[in-house]
């Protein structure tokens, strides 16, 4: 279980807290979606959970142990992280990139073993990306790259997977594909923490929603309880509406 206690955060060159005294818990095996406007602190919270930012006030605990005390290698065995947009080197082959997920199991002079390379093939098969293994990351479409990035996080075999807006750069088809993959992963009992700009995604995943505004958690609860027009209006404004014209209900704007 992840426990967030009195968590506040301020960037070096700002004079206000981006996160303001957060207190909540994330339970094992749940899907958790952070919703809120741009700049409300979602990415900051995601990065703090992934251990990519420090100097926060308060504490983040995993199974009653502060994640500050976890060495980087140990932390990577608990939390896997998928960035919003992969900004790093794009010239590596997909099969090599996926194998990098094993680095926390190897000694400093070792490279992946045969059975680990077989696991790469198995994961690629599971995610239907076998045909991409011999391509460079830079040759992939946005959707393919995002699925490869998620697959590389799954290879770490951690109990918790953290994703920063995993569908932000994707078309509708790829959004659906990524969300279906996340649903599958959740069924294995992994805890998923992700940020999103689309409340419908939280409904699709039947997630636990953390609705954020101005660095604070406004509401926490199941998507069906939180994704309601009157609640969302408090954060997103009056233009929010529930469309019932289609065969399914969808949150959108007037």
């Amino acid at each position, binding site marked *: 279980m992840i426990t967030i206690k009195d968590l506040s955060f301020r960037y*070096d*060159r700002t004079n206000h807290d981006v996160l303001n005294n957060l207190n909540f818990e994330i339970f094992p095996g749940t899907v958790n979606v952070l919703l809120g406007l741009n700049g409300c602190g979602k990415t900051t919270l995601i990065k703090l959970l*992934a*251990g*990519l930012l420090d100097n926060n006030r308060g504490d983040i605990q995993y199974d009653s142990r502060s994640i500050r005390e976890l060495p*980087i*290698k140990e*932390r*990577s*065995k608990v*939390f*896997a*992280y998928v*960035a919003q947009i*992969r*900004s*790093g*080197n794009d*010239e*590596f*082959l997909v099969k*090599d990139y996926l194998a*990098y*997920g094993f*680095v*926390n199991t190897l000694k*400093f*002079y*070792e*490279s*992946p073993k045969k059975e680990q390379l077989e696991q790469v093939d198995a994961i690629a098969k599971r995610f239907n990306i076998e045909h991409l293994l011999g391509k460079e990351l830079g*040759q992939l479409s946005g959707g393919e790259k995002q699925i490869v990035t998620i697959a590389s996080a799954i290879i*770490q075999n951690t109990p918790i997977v953290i994703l920063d807006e995993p569908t932000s750069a994707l078309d509708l088809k790829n959004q659906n594909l990524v969300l279906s993959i996340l649903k599958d992963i959740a069924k294995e009992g992994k805890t998923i923490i992700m940020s999103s700009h689309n409340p419908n995604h939280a409904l699709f995943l039947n997630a636990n929603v953390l609705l954020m505004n101005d660095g604070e958690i406004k509401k926490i609860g199941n998507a069906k309880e939180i994704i309601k027009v009157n609640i969302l209006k408090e954060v997103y404004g009056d233009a929010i509406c529930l469309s019932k014209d289609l065969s399914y209900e969808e949150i959108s704007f007037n």
Partner: protein
Amino acid sequence: MNKKTAIYLSCSLGIFAIVFCVALMVGRYPMALSDFFKCIFSSDSAYNTQRSIILNLRLPRTLMACFAGIGLSVSGLLYQEIFQNKLTSPDLLGVSSGASVGAAIAILLGLSSVFISVFAFVMGVATVMITMIVARLFKNNNSSVTLILAGIIVGGFMSAMLSLVKYFADPTTTLASITYWLMGSFQNAKMTEVYIMFPVMLASCIALLLMSWRINIIALGREEAQTKGLNYKAYRISIIAIATLLTALSVAFCGTISWIGLVVPHIVRLIVGRDTRKTIPLCMTFGATFMILVDIFSRTFTDAEIPLSAITGLFGTIIFVIILVYRRKEVYNDNN
């Protein structure tokens, strides 16, 4: 290592061995192939002169060329990987400009060649440390950009210092020595320098080969490297330290040699791709071969020795243009 890389590595090792032997044979005192083998493999006193030329003059300078080629090529590759910028060279953090100031001060003070090397090495390493301190003062999370910026600032400061030292130098004696040193040469190479360089080169190369797979992960950037379980800061500082050591030693003993740290990694990447398990060993063989060829050219093309940077600059720029044109064609073909 796949079959293709193994073939390239074997071929480049073979070419390196041939070029190494040629470097020992050619020069102002040319030697026939048969004479060369006789003075290497026999103790016939008739070949004492040739043997002395090979062991005391050509062997140390060829070994130094080999070490400088390896050091500058590999450190160029390392800087390009960890800063995720293919246009960075070993002087990114100011090591060469700092070493140049150190050497120029030693020449200005009339110190011996040993002290010139010591001054150059110490100033080169100190300049990188100053760059790291300046980068920390910026307090910016995007540390790669701030480090590059700090390197440009400190490098600029050192260039100004060098201009001042040159201004105070005697135009007829010391200024000429400083200018000649800055263009790089293996003319004064000695076996004592080889004995200093060899263990450092060997230890650095072994360490780099052992962690070559992880350097790939560091090249992904801080976020990915750290969340996959690597201590990014520790690895980056270790890699910068090794690259700085290799560059500072090369510059201290051989002067500043431009372009090789930029061109060789590009050639190697063009052949085997980005994986540092393949590029590091190939940078070693290609860098050593390229530098020995440059040295052969420098001492055989004219009666006087041509400074190394003039040759590496000439060939380096031409090769770089060829690489860019080739890559452009490759990208064009990929997009069509």
